[in-house]
């Protein structure tokens, strides 16, 4: 299966292939096979846990716990933080999503190591400085964090999970993610092209 995918991938246009690293990383898996793999992992989460995948929830736990550690009263008075911090009977980090995200880091590293793609570098287009790229990364991350909380989930929790379960709000969300990204793509073209 994997060799089949590699052959398929190598016949595709060179523009899609990662060119930044000097080492010889293996080509990416065929998109559809990777998608099926991702779908089966999601299905496993439904069957085993009765819930989907997520990512941003774990970061909310981290932020809320941080706020609670620095200003406990402030966190307790804010319903957003206090929901993630919990009632103090168990650690807020003893949470399903937190452990799942730890797994995501491990899985990404595993895959990257196997395919020779782990390398310290900055992802950017050729016509932008690293410093500027970092500004944009921080700004984009900030918008992402804010938007994900407003929508009650990110691309994993809402678009993938809710999409597979045919949630109405999740599909509306997914369309808006693409709309928002395409709307800003032109302004950002110098960063990537």
């Amino acid at each position, binding site marked *: 299966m994997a060799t089949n995918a590699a052959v398929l991938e190598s016949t595709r246009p060179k523009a899609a292939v990662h060119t930044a690293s000097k080492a010889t990383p293996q080509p990416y898996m065929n998109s559809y096979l990777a998608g099926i793999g991702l779908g089966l992992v999601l299905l496993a989460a439904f069957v085993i846990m009765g819930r989907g995948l997520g990512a941003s929830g774990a970061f909310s736990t981290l932020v809320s716990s941080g706020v609670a550690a620095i200003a406990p009263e402030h966190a307790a008075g*804010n319903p957003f933080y206090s929901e993630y911090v919990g009632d103090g009977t168990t650690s807020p980090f003893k949470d399903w999503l937190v452990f799942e*995200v730890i797994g995501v*880091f491990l899985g990404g590293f595993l895959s990257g190591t196997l395919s020779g793609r782990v390398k310290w570098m900055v992802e950017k287009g050729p016509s932008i400085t690293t410093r500027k790229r970092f500004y944009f990364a921080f700004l984009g*991350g900030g918008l992402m964090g804010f938007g994900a909380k*407003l*929508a009650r989930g990110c691309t994993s929790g809402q678009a993938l999970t809710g999409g597979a379960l045919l949630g109405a709000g999740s599909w509306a969300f997914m369309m808006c993610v693409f709309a928002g990204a395409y709307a800003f793509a032109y302004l950002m073209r110098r960063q990537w092209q």
Partner: protein
Amino acid sequence: MTAPFFKFGYFSEDIGLVLAIVIGIGFGFFLEQAGFGSGRKLAAQFYFTDMTVLKVMFTAIVTAMLGVFWLGVAGVLDLSLVYVSPTYLWPQIAGGLVLGAGFVIGGYCPGTSCVAVSTGKADALVYLGGILAGIFVFGELFPAIEEFYISSAYGTLTLPEVFHLPYGVVVFAVVVMAIGAFAAAEWGERKMAQKKENKT
């Protein structure tokens, strides 16, 4: 009906956390294999040069959707025990637009940024810091926007309920739509590649 296993009490919450890591590893593995550890590959989606995001995402949705449907119909999975996040229409529309802008500006989404960090992308690390800051800003503003946050609530609303169609019909429609989108994506990628060749 024997699934979801956790909801039927086949294992404890602690075992569930171990399984969370295992499921997370699978999630991270396929995200990285798909190429989502690269911000440029992700962003290329929005310049029509590389439609991997659309292809992987919709293949995953179709796979999981068909799996859930058929396991539900076969009586293996009690779908009503699977958590479907409730619809809050306007907050989700607004959140989606903001998140989409963040996607193309930052180059990642929360899940893919984890994978990018673990494969050594420095910009993804900065991006993660940005996410934490964004969540902090949201938390600080929460009392002011709570009213909007809980507005236009429809409870657990699914597309079959919105369109008054049988579940299976919507499943088929999503499959057809996805395959149409894939065909369009393949065509678009070829066009863009030709355009690039003509330029050089």
